[in-house]
């Protein structure tokens, strides 16, 4: 295990940034989100929860897939495609397709919390399954995750319900685990990628034992046990519950305050739905994809219309996807990691915890009756 004094963190950042793009929590206009480490960046490394999750680094909210350009050239120039009807003119048009480049440089996400690491695992099951999403895979191949323990978990956290250990990031599927303890940052490589990174920045560290880390882990575990939703029951969810939950009357009332905004979706580390659209550029189109939200009225809109016409159906889609459809397809793994961002951010204070609890309550009531 290595350590560096918190006062000297900028030396570590500089060392990482020398060979990689460094992405870490940065405060901008009062809000902390993952952003590039640039000169003058207001790094807020002790932030528990960034407003948006770090999934943006692998699955950006907006990314270009390819460009199609039309050019008009003289007929004697070499052309791939023919002109329109009425040939024999001096000009013809050509179309060229230009793929967006794949990420080919390493980048480091520093300070990512264990829940968000789990969130990336959730995305992997979608994007790395056949057919593999090349854009995502390139970023995954080049992304290095430095995950950090959560020293002061908050009441909206419920990661432990999903088996995530906020005290011990070394259990996460990341590359380096770090802790902040007694004025130092402790560093431990947990994958070959992590070891390579460690090697390249080793000079800023000094060696250390694990005593301070162990103490911190114990303190975090103590707090985790006291979190109000530490023991959130997921008994009613997982594989094979689709029919029962889908037709539950709980949905009839609970969705009502939902604004149909996309806040929960866009702050969520696991939401993975996107839309593909064309933007008409000067001489062609740019085909891009951008996050979509199942809360939106035009989500999965088709020529005939929409197959989820009411907000109840759209609301149900989001939670059923996270707690039932996804587990059905991924061996019981939930598509929620308990980061609690939606708990903090929902404008109507409606969130997945309330949904889970509402189902529990309804079951309890049935039991009584």
């Amino acid at each position, binding site marked *: 295990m290595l350590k560096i004094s918190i006062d000297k963190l900028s030396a570590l950042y500089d060392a990482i940034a020398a060979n990689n793009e460094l992405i870490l929590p940065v405060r901008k206009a009062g809000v902390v989100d993952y952003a590039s480490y640039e000169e003058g960046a207001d790094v807020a490394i002790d932030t528990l929860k960034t407003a948006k999750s770090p999934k943006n680094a692998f699955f950006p909210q907006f990314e270009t897939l390819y460009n199609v350009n039309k050019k008009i050239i003289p007929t004697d120039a070499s052309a791939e495609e023919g002109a329109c009807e009425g040939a024999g003119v001096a000009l013809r048009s050509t179309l060229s397709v230009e793929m967006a480049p794949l990420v080919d440089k390493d980048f480091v996400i520093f300070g990512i919390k264990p829940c968000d690491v789990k969130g990336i695992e959730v995305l992997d099951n979608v994007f790395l399954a056949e057919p593999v999403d090349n854009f995502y895979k390139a970023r995954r191949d080049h992304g290095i995750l430095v995950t950090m323990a959560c020293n002061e978990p908050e009441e909206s956290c419920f990661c432990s319900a999903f088996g995530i250990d906020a005290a011990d990031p070394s259990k996460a599927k990341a590359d380096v685990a770090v802790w902040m303890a007694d004025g130092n940052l402790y560093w431990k490589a947990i994958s070959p990628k992590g070891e390579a990174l460690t090697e390249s920045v080793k000079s800023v560290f000094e060696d250390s034992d694990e005593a301070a880390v162990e103490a911190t882990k114990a303190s975090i575990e103590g707090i985790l046990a006291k979190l109000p939703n530490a023991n959130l029951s997921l008994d009613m969810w997982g594989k094979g519950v689709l029919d029962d939950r889908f037709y539950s009357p709980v949905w009839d009332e609970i969705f009502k305050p939902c604004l149909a905004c996309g806040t929960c979706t866009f702050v969520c580390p696991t939401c993975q739905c996107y839309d593909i659209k064309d*933007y008409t*550029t*000067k001489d062609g189109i*740019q085909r891009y994809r951008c996050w979509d939200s199942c809360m939106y009225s035009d989500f999965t809109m088709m020529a005939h219309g929409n197959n989820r016409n009411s907000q109840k159906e759209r609301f149900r889609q989001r939670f059923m996807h996270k707690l039932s459809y996804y587990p059905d397809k991924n061996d019981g793994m939930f598509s929620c990691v308990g980061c609690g961002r939606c708990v903090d951010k929902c404008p109507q204070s409606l969130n997945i915890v309330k949904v889970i609890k509402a189902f529990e309550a309804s079951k309890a009531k049935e039991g009584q009756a």
Partner: protein
Amino acid sequence: MPMINGEFRPKIVAFCCNWCSYGGADLAGSSRLSYPADVKIIRVPCSGRVNPMFILRAFERGADGVIICGCHPGDCHYSTGNYYARRRMTLLFSMLEYIGIENGRTRVEWVSAAEGVKFQATMNEFVDKVKSLGENVRLGDLRCKD
């Protein structure tokens, strides 16, 4: 930046109402009153037809200036269209100014069908003003650039 012979040539969209200003532009034409080719006119039935969205869209797509021309207040072919346009545009321009868009990229001018000379003078002035402001970088969408 579109340059011709080393000179910045702005893209300017002019919305002209069919009854007065489009006629004013026609009169400028038939009177051979020249103004820069940077101005491209879109015919609308009335200045009251101009949705603020059209103006922002033009900027988004790379216009450097947008001007709306209609009948003089009181002379609207539809009686009142230009009065609504006047309020809409006043508020919209004020908002653009508020978010830091340079003044002078937008303008409203009342030009009657008999005012070919005014049409020319207005366009000359407006083009000069927009040229002095240079390319519209604050409102454009990068994807529309060359």
